[in-house]
């Protein structure tokens, strides 16, 4: 019979299904026996954690939507009603609100891991680019979600961010009118944001699927940044990494639960507990913490259009990162200078976040500008040059066999052999 899959499952029911639709074979291949480098550290948990986080957001979001009223007159009260009257509504809301923060914490760590260990390099360029698409979709989703409670920060955040598009020459104002569904942020804006906020997570799920498919074509990177050569270098995904991911998941859930149960408003902003009022502007309009670095970049440029270009550019630059970094060595472990500069880069990103939360006055303007300049310098100048100038350390022969061989197989530099490989 043409096209039928030859299933190896013993259970007759599973075999019958698997013969016709080889889901069981696929799951076994991709998540059961899937050969995975044996040397992952705990930073390799964060992809799985992001997946879990996405599912938590979708499930809590569906139940919140059952009780939410997307109208300017009813949104704020309906959110309060969820917290006060819906059974465990407070739990749903606080998990969803803090889940957004957890999602960005997890994804940012996931990305810095990728940067540190060179996970974006050949042949994983497309895998990385799909990840950047996911980040953009997440940002749009989070922004629109923050508008829904219709507090003061919801309203004014939406006003500031949508107005950014008016900086686009010629068509900017038309785009803003289209986003608003009118001539100011109002009921039609809230309605379309709710609709899109419900849609986007499913788009994200689709792109995450592509991300995982691409990952399973290239295989995972690993802390040494060298490809597995034999079965000695890998372990079956299950049970080794299912259990290791489970450990990470437990710790992640503890951090998550600590926020939800003991400090549900810690990462939020007090002004958002005041209902939206178009006639009163809050003293400082600040976005949620996960947007602060980008907000700092936006404000560092005196021109509106320039700021918008730089802000979007700071993410767009990630798309071409695989070609900006000219070094053939992936892991920062074997790139002594890149490794130091990676720490500098992390500090710069965090400083940008701090600067983004301060009123744009005095020293914070200068700090914001210096860090913005360094952010772009890192990608546009340092990475292309460093790949050519830096002398990488000798790479181990394989993951299982930590014998060091220099790049190109030339004579070993003195002392390199004497230094034993560090165990992860």
């Amino acid at each position: 019979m043409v096209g039928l899959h030859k299933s190896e499952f013993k259970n007759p029911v599973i075999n019958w299904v698997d013969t016709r639709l080889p889901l069981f074979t696929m799951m076994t291949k991709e998540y059961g026996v899937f050969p995975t480098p044996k040397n992952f550290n705990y930073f390799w948990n964060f992809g799985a954690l992001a997946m879990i986080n996405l599912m938590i957001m979708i499930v809590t979001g569906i139940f919140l939507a059952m009780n939410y009223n997307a109208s300017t007159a009813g949104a704020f009260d309906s959110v309060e009603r969820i917290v006060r009257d819906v059974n465990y509504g407070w739990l749903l809301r606080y998990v969803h609100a803090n889940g957004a923060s957890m999602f960005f914490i997890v994804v940012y760590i996931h990305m810095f891991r990728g940067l540190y260990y060179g996970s974006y390099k050949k042949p994983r360029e497309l895998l990385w680019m799909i990840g950047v698409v996911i980040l953009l979709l997440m940002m749009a989703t989070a922004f629109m979600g923050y508008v829904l409670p219709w507090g003061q920060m919801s309203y004014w955040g939406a006003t500031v961010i949508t107005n950014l598009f008016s900086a686009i020459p010629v068509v900017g104002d038309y785009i803003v009118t289209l986003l608003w569904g009118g001539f100011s942020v109002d009921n039609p804006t809230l309605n379309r944001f709710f609709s899109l906020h419900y849609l986007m997570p499913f788009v994200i799920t689709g792109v995450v699927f592509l991300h995982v498919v691409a990952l399973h074509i290239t295989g995972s990177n690993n802390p040494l940044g060298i490809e597995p050569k034999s079965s000695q270098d890998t372990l079956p995904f299950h049970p080794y990494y299912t259990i290791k991911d489970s450990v990470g998941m437990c710790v992640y859930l503890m951090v998550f639960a600590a926020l939800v149960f003991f400090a549900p408003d810690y990462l939020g902003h007090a002004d958002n507990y005041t209902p939206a009022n178009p006639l009163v502007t809050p003293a400082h309009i600040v976005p949620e913490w996960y947007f602060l670095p980008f907000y700092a970049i936006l404000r560092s440029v005196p021109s509106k259009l320039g700021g918008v270009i730089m802000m979007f550019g700071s993410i767009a630059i990630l798309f071409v990162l695989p070609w900006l970094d000219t070094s053939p060595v992936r892991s920062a472990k074997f790139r002594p200078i890149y490794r130091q500069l990676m720490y500098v880069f992390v500090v710069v990103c965090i400083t940008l976040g701090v600067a983004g939360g301060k009123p744009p006055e005095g020293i914070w303007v200068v700090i914001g500008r210096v860090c913005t300049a360094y952010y772009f310098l890192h990608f546009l100048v340092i990475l292309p040059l460093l790949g050519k100038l830096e002398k990488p350390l000798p790479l181990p022969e394989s993951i299982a066999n930590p014998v060091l061989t220099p790049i190109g197989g030339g004579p070993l530099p003195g002392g390199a052999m004497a230094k034993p490989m560090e165990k992860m």
Partner: protein
Amino acid sequence: MSLNRFTLFGALLGAAIGLGSVTPVLAAEVELPHQNWSFEGPFGTYDKASAQRGFLVYQQVCSNCHSMKQAYYRNLAGIGLSDEQIKAIAAQVDVPTIGDDGQPTTRKGLPSDHFKAPYPNEKAARAAQGGALPPDQSVLIKAREGGPDYIYALLTGYTEPPAGVKMGEGMNYNKVMAGNQIAMAAPLSDGRVEYTDGTKPTLEQEARDVTTFLAYIANPEMEQRKRLGVRVMLFLAALTCVTYAVKRQIWSDVHH
């Protein structure tokens, strides 16, 4: 080595989160003295006696001008009032309704009703308050940086304006209020309300009590949330230990 890297990343991230969210607090101009609240910390609960006195302050003082429209009379059960007491309190207000003859009329309030607002709408409130709108108190504690410390400091922060400060018409000087001018006249003072439990109604005591009450009204779920949270944390801590042990077991045959 790898531990160092974890610690560093962790510290950096922690710093980012900490600094990021502390930022708006730093923007406040006045330092708010921290008060000890019974509802602080992972095991905090509401001081029911204080919250009940606070309800008295709310009823006799705040509710003359401020609405509290998200809360219901039945919420008073959470500060220890009995069903009978709540029914009696709710019955003190008249709620607009449509009678059997189809004409507008009123009925006695029920525990399931929202707290009745002093004014029918915002315009009526502003008209009666010289243009100022008394903010709704349902989530007021959560709507101000500093939360309960801010409300307490504001209520006890009224002083004579310093020499040379020109006050707007009908405005009062307050150390804590942004711009130091507040339309609300000092609402509380020594002996402003009469407590039935023998507590001395000083300004500080009244402010503390009404803040506790407002904290309850803003977070009526807090005690349940923290109780559940403690159990969830204990469960997750145990699960983490077991999972880690299983992980060690499974990985024991892997040669690093």
